[in-house]
């Protein structure tokens, strides 16, 4: 069995496809809105050096990633252990060397990886215009505005993904998540803009 088939198999027997999907969206959203908030904060403040903005954003992105990995691993490991223990009690059999035992070891790592990499990757994509600008690449708009556009695009795409998963209109779902981003910006203007 190739690695991808093996991963699909382990997710199938533990019925954790939904959890992986959910963590991807929830934490991807976390990363996107956190970066949006950070960029907006810099935008409405007095102008800051691009390096300061990049370092602050990168710090937040890394923290989100580490938080995602560690929290998901600890909680999922406990859940998988509990589920395996229940199954072993029911079957009065040691299942450590079975597929379920393997799943109890690997599925928490996989879920942790998704939980941590979703906000990290999305955050890095959002701040990519800042890096490009610092590297000397000419952008047609200010790097901060470009980062905000990318953030909106990614938030919309997360909404589209949610729409596909739940079987509702992808456009409606994408617009719903965009509205959440707009409300975030409004709140930032209201409380931090003054």
């Amino acid at each position, binding site marked *: 069995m190739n690695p991808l088939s093996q991963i699909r*198999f382990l997710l*199938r*027997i*533990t*019925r954790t496809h939904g959890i992986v999907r959910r963590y991807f969206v929830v934490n991807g959203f976390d990363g996107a809105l956190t970066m949006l908030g950070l960029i907006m904060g810099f935008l409405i403040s007095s102008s800051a050096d691009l390096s300061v903005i990049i370092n602050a954003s990168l710090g937040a992105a890394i923290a989100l990633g580490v938080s995602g990995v560690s929290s998901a691993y600890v909680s999922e490991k406990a859940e998988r252990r509990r589920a395996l223990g*229940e*199954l072993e009690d*029911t*079957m*009065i*059999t040691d*299942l450590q*060397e*079975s*597929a*379920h*035992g393997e799943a109890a070891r690997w599925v928490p790592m996989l879920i942790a990886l998704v939980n941590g990499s979703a906000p990290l990757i999305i955050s890095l994509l959002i701040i990519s215009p800042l890096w490009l600008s610092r590297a000397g690449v000419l952008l047609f708009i200010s790097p901060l505005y470009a980062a905000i556009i990318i953030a909106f695009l990614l938030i919309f795409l997360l909404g589209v993904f949610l729409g596909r998963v739940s079987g509702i209109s992808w456009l409606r779902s994408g617009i719903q998540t965009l509205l959440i981003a707009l409300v975030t910006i409004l709140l930032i203007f209201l409380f931090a803009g003054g």
Partner: protein
Amino acid sequence: MVSVKRLVLDILKPHQPDALEFSCTLAKGGDDYRVGLTVIEMDENTETIQVVIEGSNINFEAIQSAITSMSGSLHSIDVVEVQSEPDKE
């Protein structure tokens, strides 16, 4: 040489992997295995199944290993058919 031609096994397994995947994995153990699976009983977490395996020379250790790897538990061997064949020189 004695060849195992047919086995009927009583197995307890979790719901996943499902019956189709379980029987396909057992069938992959040999070139000419024919596997029949019947779900006898079911509860919240597990199901009791009866598996019939037919082949020209069934490798029981491999079957047992496959059952264990799929989180199954072999409860009993209910029917066995074996045949003695002359050793091939």
